[in-house]
């Protein structure tokens, strides 16, 4: 299912999956619901400034530039990178 959503199935796999989806009372609705979800999620991508629904703030570029200019510091390798939990 994830590969089908990603469009990463081979043509043969896609044909078999499509046939299965047509016949399966669970997979068809699941696939269609996940497609609708993906469309909805993409629609909120450009409106991320405030997930709580408030008025989106302006650009963060000025604040980032100000921070960068105020703390240029010593350039060195990035340190202490904690991996995202697996």
């Amino acid at each position, binding site marked *: 299912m994830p590969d089908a959503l990603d469009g990463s199935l081979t043509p043969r796999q896609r044909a078999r999956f499509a046939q299965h989806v047509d016949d399966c009372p669970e997979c068809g*609705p699941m696939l*269609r*619901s996940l497609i609708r979800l993906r469309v909805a999620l993409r629609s*909120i991508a450009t409106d991320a400034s405030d997930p709580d629904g408030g008025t989106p703030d302006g650009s*963060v570029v000025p604040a*980032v530039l100000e921070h960068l200019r105020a703390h240029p*510091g010593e350039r060195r*390798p*990035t340190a202490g990178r904690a991996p*995202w939990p697996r």
Partner: protein
Amino acid sequence: MSEQSPPSAQDGELVARAKAGDLLAFEELVRMYADRLHAVVRRLVDNQDEAEEVTQEAFLRAWRGIATFKGDSQFFTWLYRIGVNEAHRRTSHRRSPVASLEEQLVEPADTRPEPPRRLEQDDLRRALERAVQGLKPDQRAPLVLRDIEGLSTAEAAAILDMGEAAFKSRLHRARLAVRDAVRDYLPEDPER
């Protein structure tokens, strides 16, 4: 959208100049990517202020460490990785303030005298945002990067330092959780 984004010649030139110590070139990269990174980070931390701090810190770390960027990935992939890990560093010691998806989003059936009405787009957006915030962090980041931000599977998995198979598995669980949380708000299945 599983393909990699095309390499950016503009990125390459700016990165090369930044590596040589040109802060103005790096500031151009800030202008190109700061708001995009902030949009991602905002969904991974608790509030707007923290998202801005994480974004600032990510760029500062990127500037200080850009000499270590080998160029074998897109610049923004490397930058996102710094930002995502900075967000994780700040939130990992806290308990999520967000209740479970079920607690947040499931309306008691007996309080609704009518079938759920088709909500406005704003309501759908808010429901989606709450559902995403309600995900466990290890599921939230894959969904934000892949489905909201629109990165390819390969790019998003690389940012999270995960294999693609593990990434897809986690993403699928996240999608199912969010879908279940917002099921009533999504457009109806035309084939039902």
